[in-house]
């Protein structure tokens, strides 16, 4: 096994463990912090798989912006009582059924298309400049649409989050 292979398994272990810790926490702040560790692991994995620009974006946007937004909301909302129980039976059954369907389908896909799956990944790097050039020549329209989507999200979040004065008395 090469050094890169050992690094991959190490990172995979860290990601899976921290995600598992995140989804079983009662305290929401702890869950968010565990998820930040998971996203840092994903960023290192992206770097290992030859995407340095995506690794930087993952740290800046996912672990930075999105998780901090979650932390803000967790601190803003005061929860009176913690969830009890953490995994209620009523929701466990659909989760287990869909998980079983997912696992069976995935296992079938992995075992039937063997030649595509068995190939070893050769290490290669998409340098940020080459990747940016590629992105803005082949996908420039999609980039513009994504920026429009972000603008719409900004307006939507502003509209939904706006405080409205509660109507005190009915209009005469």
């Amino acid at each position, binding site marked *: 096994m090469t050094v890169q292979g050992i690094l991959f398994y190490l990172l*995979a272990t860290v990601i*899976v463990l921290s995600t598992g810790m995140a*989804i079983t926490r009662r305290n929401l702040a702890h869950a968010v912090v565990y*998820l930040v560790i998971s996203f840092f692991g994903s960023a290192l*994995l992206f770097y290992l798989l030859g995407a340095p620009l995506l690794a930087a974006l993952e740290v800046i946007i996912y672990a930075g912006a999105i998780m901090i937004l*979650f932390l803000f909301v967790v601190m803003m909302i005061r929860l009176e009582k913690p969830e009890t129980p953490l995994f209620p039976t009523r929701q466990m059954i659909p989760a287990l059924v869909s998980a079983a369907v997912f696992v069976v389908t995935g296992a079938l896909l992995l075992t039937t298309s063997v030649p595509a799956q068995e190939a070893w*990944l050769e290490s290669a790097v998409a340098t940020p400049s080459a990747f940016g050039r590629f992105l803005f020549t082949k996908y420039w329209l999609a980039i513009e649409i*994504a920026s429009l989507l972000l603008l719409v999200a900004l307006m939507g979040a502003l509209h939904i989050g706006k405080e409205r004065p509660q109507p005190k008395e009915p209009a005469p």
Partner: protein
Amino acid sequence: MIVPYSHVIVLSGILFLMGMFCTVVRRNLIMVLLGLEIMLNAAAVAFVGASLRWQLMDGQALVIFIIAVAATEVSVGLAMVVAAYRQTGSVDPALLEGKETSG
């Protein structure tokens, strides 16, 4: 030579399963959104692995769009969670059933 491609897919599948579990099972709207983030991240891992497998940059370009969609979804979703909390004083999805939120 890093690892076989299937191992990346298996890692992505495990992450997706965890996110799906978090979304379906937890009774807290914030944890539901966190589960969605985990699922989107799992898809990004699969795309980067496929990008390296076929030595094409298109997979990495799609990850950019996944990140943009994740940011969009989380900003609008958290605004809706805060609006629902203001209306009902709770973030339990079971308590929101049947309650009309104005606006």
